[in-house]
């Protein structure tokens, strides 16, 4: 039976769609299509795109290496304060990114909580370094991976792990050959969300890592700067991120709409 929505409801819904669609349509209409190639190939823009790609992948790597073990513990091990830890790890999802950036600055800066001891160490993510970009992006994006991975691990039928144990598989082998394959879809969805979030981060990166071309100027911050000097170029570069976001969304499809 086809349901005819009440007029008021239909109007509100249409406005909601318009609110999201119009700016994006405007972006597409404003794109300087003939200049797209040269703009994206120009050294500044290329530098920002490459840095964004490297740092977002780096942030994903950090998130996977640290986040998956955390997700495993949250899902499988009962310990006092577990809900507190879960809440803490989810905090960056709701925290204003710029606040995250400020917090990172005062923890990892030269006189910071951690920074005062480790500032000289090579590779340490001091403020305004490329490492700081990776850290800032990981800070805001890791929760997405942890939450999705934990949900996947909880939903999984643990009896498969029991069956594997009775067949002679020890804990590591069980994890690699049974657990991981069974939660792979959730992990993939979580990783995609995590990476997309890292790629788009602005507030935390600009506060903690700054905006130094070639070193800490990622694509979002480059767009921000371009808006002042050359708005048309800003639109061109925005199109790149818009396309990437759409691709990520299409990649997630049912997965995302179901899992979240």
């Amino acid at each position, binding site marked *: 039976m086809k349901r005819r929505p009440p007029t008021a409801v239909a109007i509100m819904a249409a406005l909601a769609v318009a609110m999201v669609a119009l700016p994006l349509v405007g972006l597409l209409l404003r794109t300087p299509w003939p200049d797209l190639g040269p703009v994206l190939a120009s050294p500044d823009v290329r530098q920002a795109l490459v840095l964004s790609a490297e740092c977002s992948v780096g942030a994903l790597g950090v998130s996977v290496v640290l986040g998956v073990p955390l997700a495993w513990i949250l899902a499988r091990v009962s310990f006092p304060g577990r809900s507190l830890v879960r809440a803490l790890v989810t905090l960056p999802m709701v925290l204003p990114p710029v606040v995250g950036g400020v917090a990172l600055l005062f923890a990892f800066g030269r006189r910071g909580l951690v920074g005062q001891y480790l500032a000289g160490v090579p590779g340490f993510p001091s403020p305004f370094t490329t490492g700081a970009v990776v850290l800032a992006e990981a800070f805001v994006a890791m929760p997405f991976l942890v939450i999705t991975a934990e949900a996947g691990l909880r939903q999984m*039928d643990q*009896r*498969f792990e*029991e*069956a*594997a*144990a*009775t*067949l*002679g*598989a*020890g804990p590591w*082998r069980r994890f690699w*050959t*049974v657990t991981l*394959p*069974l939660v792979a879809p959730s992990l993939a969805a979580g990783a995609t969300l995590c990476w997309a979030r890292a790629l788009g981060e602005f507030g935390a990166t600009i506060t903690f890592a700054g905006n130094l071309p070639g070193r800490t100027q990622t694509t979002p911050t480059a767009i921000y700067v371009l808006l002042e000097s050359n708005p048309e170029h800003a639109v061109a570069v925005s199109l790149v991120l818009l396309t990437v976001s759409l691709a990520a969304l299409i990649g997630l499809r049912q997965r995302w709409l179901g899992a979240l």
Partner: protein
Amino acid sequence: MNLDLELDAERAGILAIAGPNGAGKTTLLRALAGLLAIDRGRVELDGEVLDDTTSGIHLEPEVRPVAVVFQDYLLFPHLSALENVAYGLRSRGASRSAARQEAGTWLERVGVAGMAAERPRGLSGGQAQRVALARALATRPALLLLDEPLAAIDVSARAALRRDLRTHLTGADGVRIVVTHDPLDAMAMADRLVVMESGRIIQQGTLQEVTARPRSRWVAQLVGLNLYRGTASGNLITLPEGHQIRVTGETQGSAFAVVHPRAVSLHRQRPEGSPRNVWPGQVDGIDFEGDRVRVEVGGPVGVVAEVTPQAATELRLAEGGRVWVTIKATEFEVYPT
């Protein structure tokens, strides 16, 4: 769930652990597999200690020579049937090709060689069960545990699979234990039977020994007898709720009384006559089984009666209807608990 028992199982013959749901059979099985820690006690297999709470020994499942066929089979969904069977072999160090080859042989042995490349979701219930069995047998376990192996099978396919399973189990080495709540499974596969109830072993022995003197509702159901438990004083047995059955004999103290449904008579009105046991009841259920009719009579003393179809018609038996039950005292067999 509290378990309190002592169990011995031989390599010779198949042991069936039977009993109603909730008896603790699966808990016992999980403890034997090492999936559950025991609070107090000892588990020994072929002289190797698997569990010993006094010396703190608990061998993890992966190092026990124990394999399990689970009720839901638990075939790894992301692996093919062949890879499932090869899993145990790979876990124990076999090379990929050697494991796959041996797995193929096992699949042939259980009769599902053609499904080797299929994922579990493409298998029928019977095929999945056989793959699960092959997967367990492939590790050549010293102890093979089967948890309700036919529970997930269609009723129509069960008889054939039961026979197949018995054949495969008979051909296997090691101790074989089948856990089941289904009397038919026990009858078909058990060389020895252990009957559990509420975490304890009520009876054990050969099928014949166990069914000769039922000591539990489950066994009574298996042999189709009515079972009562009460306190006997010669000709009278007093049941827990105070009702009394008249019997013959001189048993004293805690006792069981069994009577065959055929020995139970039903009447529309309170009858006169010699039977010493007369009581009213209502018809809770009627089952037509060919040339017999089983009637479940509820009331102060529940009983199952067996009458002919003609008798059922004459008595105008219907669910919910009232009947009178008579049983001669001589029809009861009484024995101490």
